[in-house]
């Protein structure tokens, strides 16, 4: 009886050890997987940030005042009205 109880105890411990070992494996695997996911997301974030910065740069390059002015004056033939051409309406 006593021996049987001891065996059962041992079996239980062995099972627990096995379970915890499997648990470690599982959680390690999970952590790897999540880490990879995190890496992928971080890379995506970085890529989007880069694109955002580059788009901002591109926008401000297209919108350089000198360029806008040239487009307005030369291409579209716009002028700023002389004061005598402006009619001011008093509220």
């Amino acid at each position, binding site marked *: 009886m006593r021996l049987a109880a001891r065996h059962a105890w041992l079996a239980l411990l062995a099972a627990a050890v096995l379970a915890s070992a499997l648990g470690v494996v599982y959680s390690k695997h999970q952590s790897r997987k999540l880490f990879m996911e995190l890496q992928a997301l971080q890379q995506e974030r970085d890529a989007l940030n880069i694109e955002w910065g580059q788009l901002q740069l591109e926008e401000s390059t297209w919108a350089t005042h000198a360029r806008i002015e040239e487009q307005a004056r030369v291409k579209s033939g716009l002028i700023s009205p002389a004061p005598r051409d402006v*009619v001011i309406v*008093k509220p």
Partner: protein
Amino acid sequence: MNAPRRNGYPLRRAALACVFGAAALVLAWRAADLQLGAAQFLQEQGDARSLRTVTVAAHRGTITDRRGEPLAISTPVDSVWAQPRLLLDAPEQHPALARLLPLEVRQLRTYLEARVEREFVYLKRRVNPDLAERVTALNAPGVALQREYRRYYPAGEVTAQLLGFTGVDDTGQEGLELAFDHWLQGREGVKRVIKDRLGRVVADVESLRAPRPGRDLRLSVDKRIQYLVYRELKSALAEHRAQSGSAVVLDAHSGEVLAMVSLPAYNPNNLDEARGASLRNRAVTDSFEPGSTIKPFTIAAALEAGLYRADTPIDTAPGFFKVGGKDIRDLHNYGRLDLAGVIQKSSNVGAARIALSLPPERLWRTFSGAGLGQPTGSGFPGEAGGVLRPHQKWHKIERATLAFGYGLSVTLLQLAQAYSVLANDGVLKPVSFVSGARGEPRAVLAPATAQSVRAMMERVTGEGGTALLARVPGYRVAGKTGTVRKLERHGYSEDRYLSLFAGMAPASRPRLVIAVVINEPAGGHYYGGLVAAPVFAKVMAGSLRLLNVAPDDLASLKVAGLDTRMMARSVSGGGE
């Protein structure tokens, strides 16, 4: 059969046993030694060959103008680096790599050989994405890319000296990049990774320190006004074939800098072409004698002293007089002038006579109170303080010349700040480059004095004034011209001048203060009213329009009467 075999070759067996036993002992001892004595060292060495701590780049904060338009952006670029030993072992890759970098193959080899002991050397920093891709495609052993950030300035030359630039390690080197470096700078993160023999990251082990990106900075500068100033100043420099020039635009109420331009400038995106002199932000780093632009403060001191009223007559005839053996001259004999006349005609004699009748301390207090010859505290790197000697040391001649702006030196930013005192009813708001961050306002002049001087300065742009070209249609403009002989080694120059104009509009309730200096105009004209005033007028007109400031001088414009208004109403009413 067994016995002889067992007893056969006893010597040989013993010898063998000894040899093997000794070998086993040696091995065991070595194993124990390694395990017990050298374990830590070996562990470290092993890790050192696979575990690496690498930095994770953190980007520098963006600088924007007051409306959120980007002025400086960091965008990631790749730097090519190598492990010299690995790369040297693959000579067949060298020609292709050298062609991309571009380097001579021999140069590349010498460079690598000199650094063969290192694990990490940069081959080329901050390459464009296209090149980075081609380097990766080579797949050369020991060559990899490292992410870094490069700073771009979309406005280029327009904001060159104002913003300054950053060095290769992304730290501010000049201008506001340096002044606000601490704020803008990101902190690199550090992480531990496992790398394989070729230097590729196999796995991230842990993050030792998360990267902290730099904070964004919103300046008080308005990019549109900045460009306007740049354009007008540039065309003025070309027209008058001047050496250099600067201009400052201040918000009269808050003391915020709306624009600050120095020319010649450089392209901050390509520093190779930048030369020493053009790197300087002259509006802040160069001080000069302000000449006649100081006269409004002389008049203000006279009013504050209570010895003069706006209509007190001053006799400037015959247009010159002697002080301490030196002549003080006007261009013409203006005869009797009132205080406003002294400003309007820019009479040196009048200003000097007024100053000599005042206690020196009074003049000094007004000048230094307005921040002339005192650092502005703007924090701009390399800011010059200017010079205003203490009044106890003034000689008589100095008291006279100070009245018309010789014998002290100021920066353009100081001059603009001083004019903002007049614009702001006597209160000085320290200049700043960031919205919100303001120093303590100081009341420097009585409001009545400031208003009275402002009214006098309006006559400068009126009939008979020195700066008809500073007029802005629809607005009342108060300002003052200055034409200053440059101080040279042997005294004042006969043919090299500074042309100055400083002023404000709308004069009834000033919104903007603009100061312009043009250095050594060589196109024939050199009077402040002819060279600097037109720049002032164009910038002022454009800025007031951009900021939607209502005109305060409608009399000079056509104003539509009742009919137009009725029409507008009936049109809008018709849609209901």
